[in-house]
């Protein structure tokens, strides 16, 4: 059914014959995007979760400008509960928890974006190639995927990061990206295999299109919503992995992150001293971001998949 031109597309196609053949396609996608937007706007899950993520992003961007000092500077008396001057209180050493929190949020978004993005790219490449090419290449890539899937990669990361002393956010994100991809590759491989034998792909192959163009031009666009959901989940995973690494003291040594805040709070007995303002905000930040992403995923799934829509 989806292959039939809808009535409103017809005039566009007749008008645009002078344009390159690709031209009508983006315009038809606007129609589909409009349909998605219509359902996305009606979905409360997407609205709320998107609002939370954007609000936190805003805090991460604007927050650092609200105070003129850095996250690790000693700015006031130690162990102060939240007050009008120190919104989230201070640490044992007099660092401003609010400033640490906003900088940590920024680091979290960065790791999620870079780590999740890199994992998506690797996962897509492996998944597409294995699923489309098949044969021995598929066997090999599938074996690789399964091995990386079964090995506790977080433990590998811990050992690697413990050895590599130069630690920055970027390195951490790259390490995470290089190990978090396997399940995405497996899922995309399965999707690609189901698309591989469809008529339009056969047709593209008959016209002599190269493998790369078939994958990027025919297969990927037909599972773009799926790829987007994959990226969202990988984003959330990267955030959780980074928090774990930071918590055991393997995070960036030169900055601050939400996991590192929790690590410091535990290390300096904030639990026993009742300094709840030190360890509550970083956890809430992570839960809000990751939880919103998970909920957004469910909502988007309903938008992209008409069978799940509630009318």
């Amino acid at each position, binding site marked *: 059914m989806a292959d039939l031109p809808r009535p409103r597309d017809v005039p566009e196609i007749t008008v645009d014959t002078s344009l390159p053949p690709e031209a009508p396609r983006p315009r038809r996608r606007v129609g589909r995007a409009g349909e998605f937007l219509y359902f996305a706007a009606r979905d409360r899950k997407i609205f709320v979760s998107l609002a939370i993520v954007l609000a936190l992003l805003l805090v991460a961007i604007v927050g650092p400008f609200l105070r003129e000092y850095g996250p690790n500077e000693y700015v006031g008396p130690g162990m102060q509960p939240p007050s009008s001057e120190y919104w989230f209180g201070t640490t044992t050493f007099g660092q401003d928890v609010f400033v640490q929190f906003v900088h940590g949020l920024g680091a979290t978004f960065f790791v999620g974006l870079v780590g999740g993005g890199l994992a998506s790219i690797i996962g897509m490449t492996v998944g597409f190639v294995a699923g489309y090419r098949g044969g021995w290449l598929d066997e090999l890539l599938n074996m690789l995927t399964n091995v990386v899937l079964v090995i506790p990669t977080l433990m590998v990361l811990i050992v690697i990061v413990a050895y590599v002393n130069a630690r920055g956010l970027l390195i951490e994100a790259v390490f995470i990206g290089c190990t978090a991809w396997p399940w995405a590759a497996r899922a995309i491989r399965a999707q690609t295999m189901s698309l591989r034998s469809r008529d339009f792909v056969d047709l593209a192959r008959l016209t002599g299109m190269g493998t790369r163009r078939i994958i990027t031009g025919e297969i990927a666009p037909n599972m773009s919503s799926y790829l987007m959901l994959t990226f969202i989940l990988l984003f959330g995973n990267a955030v*959780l992995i980074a928090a774990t690494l930071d*918590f055991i003291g393997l995070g960036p040594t030169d900055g601050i992150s939400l996991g590192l805040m929790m690590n410091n709070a*535990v290390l300096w007995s904030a*639990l026993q001293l009742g300094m709840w303002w030190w360890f509550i905000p970083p956890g809430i930040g992570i839960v809000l971001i990751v939880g919103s992403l998970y909920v957004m995923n469910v909502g988007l799934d309903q938008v992209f998949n008409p069978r799940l829509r509630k009318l």
Partner: protein
Amino acid sequence: MRRYFARKLLFYLVTFFVAVTIDWLIPRFAPGDPVTSMISRVAAQPEAAAAMMDYFNGTFGLDVPIWQQYLNFWTSLLQGDLGVSIWLFPQPVTRVIMDALPYTLALLVPAVLLAFWAGNKFGAFAARKRWLDGAVLPLGYILTATPYMWLAILLAWLLGSVWQVFPIAGAYGFNLAPAFTFQFAGSLLQHWFLPFLSLFLVGFGGWAIGMRNLIIYELDADYSRYLSSLGAPDKLIRSYAYKNARLPQLTGLALQLGVIVTGALVTEVVFSYPGLGWYSYQAIINQDYFLLQGIFLFVVIGVLLANFVIDLVYVMVDPRVRLGMEGG
């Protein structure tokens, strides 16, 4: 049947081989020769340095060709020799791990099994029940999005520090020595409960959500609709849906194992619970690389074994796999 398990076994052997190779490679590609610097830190204690150098020459021995180093590493590994811990010198790494292992297993095994069982049951129960579903969904998503250590921190703070119901550090009271007494067992249980609860809750949320989504999917499937159009009782349809839905959940358990184990490790750190996690944290702080690498190998072996067990269970609960093997 034999072919199926032979394939699985081969795969796990390959994975183990890869993991050991990675374990061997990391120190060699790390910049600045951290192993030598680690050993030079103990140079003040001559006998410590001598023991270190001994192991170092045996497994890292840089005067032999690289393939020989690799073989040496395997030889000492298969002999159970993972080197000497620097932090806990002169204890061998294997001893340290063997002391810590029971605590981690006592935490991990009940938490994983109970969370999986209870989460699945509850998720299946809540699916398609309007009032429950509305509560399960947000709660479940919040629990799965919670970093393990943060839930542990919250529980330790609320139940341990504010209300002082449970102790929050160690595996038993500081005034006790391990003995077969009721007092010691009680103290052990008391210290065990909070880390267990925190691990259990995160897992519970995830499995409940997964099961709920799967059940809803299964209840929409043709066989369910056909059954209900025949007038079959809701309970029967749900029991069929549950049987189908637990297969992907089982696969999910296998895939999640690595994450769960790491979750247990950071939970131990929060509660200073003397299992593998707390020791690896100490190993990181004290730059005791041999101990850290030894723990890594043990975790790998544990995860691989657990995967194999899940494969066995899968064969038992999925009649298609079972019949396919018996018929073929």
